[in-house]
């Protein structure tokens, strides 16, 4: 399955948007945290997991989804949120903990819920999978359109929840796709030190579902694999497992010293940064020229900047609002 030109440009635009978002967050996050790094300080306190490098996973999958489809993401959710069409203003405001954020700041960056586009995420490794299966079950039972996609890291594929959810989805033939973003690391632990098989897609056979592998962080490879899997799901043929070889260009979280990386790894990854690669491909395909790219990038940046301004200019809720929305 090949993306058409609109889809190609859409994917590129989302990747650029997501990356700019992450880069801006990176800068903003460090405010107030220098010279001594203290997580509690600055306009964006707390843990921060950036998605730089993993954009192909998000856009290749979400290119096939509409607002009615369900996505459950992980502790590293921004790129997926962007590609799923989550409202940028409310998302960045949430990351800043502001009143205009999705939850008024109660959730934060690991808990972005945008029900209008059926997006949510959770900070506990592996725990996104059950809810995704359940959303798929809900669609099946209600006869409502829409499929569900659960994203997870390759580290999460060693959690019990992975096994249980894949089995359940297969037994009940649910319209759900499980997408592993294999960035080769779970914090400081390398995939090969944690996972008994080199590739998680082989595990699909334990659940009687197709397992697909996408090599080399390839945007269009993701598009093709996800397209087929999502079509299968829409068609009532049940779940699919996809593993995507991707790259984590940043640390696990902001502040990570990354001493555990083999020498040169990061530089190598940066040279294979998927965004310039895809830009190049689009230019070669004649879909983009310098001018168009500059325009597209500029627009994408402006969207992010506008959202950041929105967030910065927003107020905090009164602290007592902490007591609200526990029960509805």
């Amino acid at each position, binding site marked *: 399955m090949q993306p058409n030109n609109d889809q190609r440009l859409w994917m590129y635009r989302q990747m650029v948007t997501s990356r700019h978002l992450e880069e801006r967050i990176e800068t903003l996050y460090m405010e107030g945290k220098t010279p001594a790094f203290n997580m509690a300080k600055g306009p964006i306190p707390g843990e921060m997991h950036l998605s730089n490098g993993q954009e192909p996973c998000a856009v290749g999958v979400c290119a096939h989804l509409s607002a009615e489809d*369900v996505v*459950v993401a992980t502790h590293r959710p921004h790129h997926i949120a962007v590609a799923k069409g989550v409202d940028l203003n409310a998302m960045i405001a949430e990351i800043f903990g502001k009143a205009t*954020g*999705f*939850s*008024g700041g*109660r*959730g934060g960056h690991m*808990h972005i*819920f945008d*029900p209008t586009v*059926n997006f*949510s995420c*959770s900070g*506990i490794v592996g*725990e996104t*999978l*059950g*809810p*995704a*299966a*359940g*959303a*798929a*079950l*809900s*669609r099946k*039972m*209600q006869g*409502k359109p829409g499929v*569900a996609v659960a994203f997870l890291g390759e580290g999460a594929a060693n959690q*019990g*929840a992975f096994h*249980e*959810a894949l*089995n*359940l989805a297969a*037994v*009940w033939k649910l319209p759900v796709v499980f997408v592993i973003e294999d960035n080769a690391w779970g914090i400081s632990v390398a995939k090969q030190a944690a996972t008994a098989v080199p590739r998680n897609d082989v595990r699909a056979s334990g659940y009687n579902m197709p397992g697909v592998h996408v090599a080399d962080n390839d945007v269009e490879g993701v598009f093709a694999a996800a397209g087929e899997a999502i079509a299968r799901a829409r068609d009532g043929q049940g779940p699919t497992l996809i593993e995507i070889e991707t790259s984590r260009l940043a640390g696990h979280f902001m502040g990570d010293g990354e001493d555990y990386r083999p020498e040169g790894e990061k530089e190598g990854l940066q040279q294979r940064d998927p965004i310039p690669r895809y830009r190049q491909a689009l230019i070669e395909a004649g879909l983009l020229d310098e001018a168009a790219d500059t325009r597209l990038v500029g627009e994408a940046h402006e969207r992010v900047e506008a959202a950041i301004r929105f967030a910065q200019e927003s107020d905090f809720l009164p602290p007592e609002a902490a007591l*609200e*929305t*526990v*029960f*509805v």
Partner: protein
Amino acid sequence: MTATTTASSSRKLTIARAMAEATAQEMRQDPSVFVMGEDVGPMGGVFGNTRGLHEEFGGERVRDTPISETAFIGAAVGAASDGMRPIVELMFVDFFGVCMDAIYNMMAKNTYFSGGTVNVPMVLMTSTGGGYSDGGQHSQCLYGTFAHLPGMKVVVPSNAYDAKGLMTAAIRDDNPVVFMYHKSLQGMGWLGTEKGATVATPEESYTVEIGKAAVVKEGRDLTLVSLGVGVHHCLRAAKALGEEGFDAEVVDLRSLVPLDRETVRASVAKTGRLIVVDEDYHSYGVSGEIIASVAEHDLACLKAAPRRVAYPDIPIPFTPTMEQWALPNADKIVDAFHQMMSQ
């Protein structure tokens, strides 16, 4: 044949049947309600509380699951956030350890994390309690464990009337509700049966408000606070104390979250004496919370140091001699009162 000639308003049900009836009534009128869990289908639930549902509603809406609590309780969270109203069963509360994340980090918190825009209207029903020698991994109450963690309502009925009304209220609640039913109250013959739990239960649908305790017996001299099977121990103790000339009030908490501290405090303000009875572990649980709730509110009303009759801080032993010795019962409550009066 007497039962059939009795008026329907005095029809007696077991808690198991009351739960199933409430579920069936809600399923009839709301297509988004469905049931998931291990052996809830043709078997009707190991503890009888889904009996008849599979026959009436079929396998789509009454789903037997794999033994995968993390997946199917997680799935309930996802389905509840997507417009369904799942009722999901954790067969024994003792098994919470394999799936608590789905329960307390997602079911209980997603509404908050979403600022109230994503509701998780689901019921997690689970059996509690011992007394029939099922050993230390199948006999726990864990009331305190669930009540301690924010974001989920927690109810514990002591009789079929409350069970039906609380179940209906739980299903209709837009928040997650943990419905903890004590095995010895289910009216399943094979578990032994506390007869006092099988009470007149209207056939028509009704709710019991979640968060309100009930004064199940009024009295002036002593307040006994309990929940689930403990309420029946208290009623028996109250009877025994009545014969000694003491008039005990019995408060059935019914709901741990929200906790009706007002009713407890009002009762103790009247009687001046408090004994809390809890089959859950002694420390860091319900009994401590109730005593603290009274003490921090009004010390002066207390005529004597409050007491608790709770499960000791030990794993639950299998052997009946030890288990029965360790469980709360009416005699221990009477004893605690005597000790209170002699100090």
